[in-house]
């Protein structure tokens, strides 16, 4: 009987205004068959520091986060009051 743990990014979503969300699934396998799974979610807003993020997520952020997207997102946030 062998137990193994794997971590995989199983979902990456990009919203219309440039927010990048991804989900990391941690899977516990018993003799190769999944018996449990947990999730950890992360969201990144345009212009946010990407230090320590997964390479595939960084690639997507760099492609999506143009200067225009970052400026538009900042304007959106600053326009929200109460």
């Amino acid at each position, binding site marked *: 009987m062998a137990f193994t743990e794997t971590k995989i990014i199983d*979902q990456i979503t990009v919203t219309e205004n440039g927010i990048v969300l991804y989900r990391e699934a941690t899977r516990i396998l018993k003799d190769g068959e999944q018996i449990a799974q947990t999730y*950890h*979610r992360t*969201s*990144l807003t345009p212009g946010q520091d990407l230090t320590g993020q997964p390479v595939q997520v960084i690639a997507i952020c760099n492609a999506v986060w143009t200067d225009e997207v970052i400026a538009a997102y900042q304007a959106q946030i600053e326009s929200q009051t109460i």
Partner: protein
Amino acid sequence: MSIVLDGTNGITTNAGTLLSATTIGVGGTTPSASGAGVSFPATQSASSDANTLDDYEEGTWTPADGSGAGLSFANIQAQYTKIGRMVFASATFDFPSTASTATNSISGLPFTVGTTSGYIGGFITNGNVAVAVRFRPGNNSSTGSIRDGSGTAQTNVALSSGAFTINAVYMV
């Protein structure tokens, strides 16, 4: 043919036991190997029907500084549960000592907040800073801010060295 559902035999037919399961998978999902309940697809298969529960997910998330001040939170514990279109996210963390006058911003919410203003809310259940009363998720964003009782977003320095438990409830 008759089909019977009871707590002892599960689902049975007059030809014998069809299924005796403690977990049920919908949408082609493999039922969970542990506990008893309903397993939903890993990626939501959204239903437009108002009486259909089409998603359930629970997990953890990491609140981070979104103010641009480069702050690092400590002692983070954060969890979420999504039921249908509602998200319940909470987080406990320590705010660092800082002199930053930027407006605080907590990023990393597990799902993007919906675009309809008013379908969101948040509060602080634990904190040692008097001006921290509300947590306000931002529409169409994955960030929120800690605010006082009148709704004014606080500066980072006003929250310096504080310890907080924030709770957000919002529709996606």
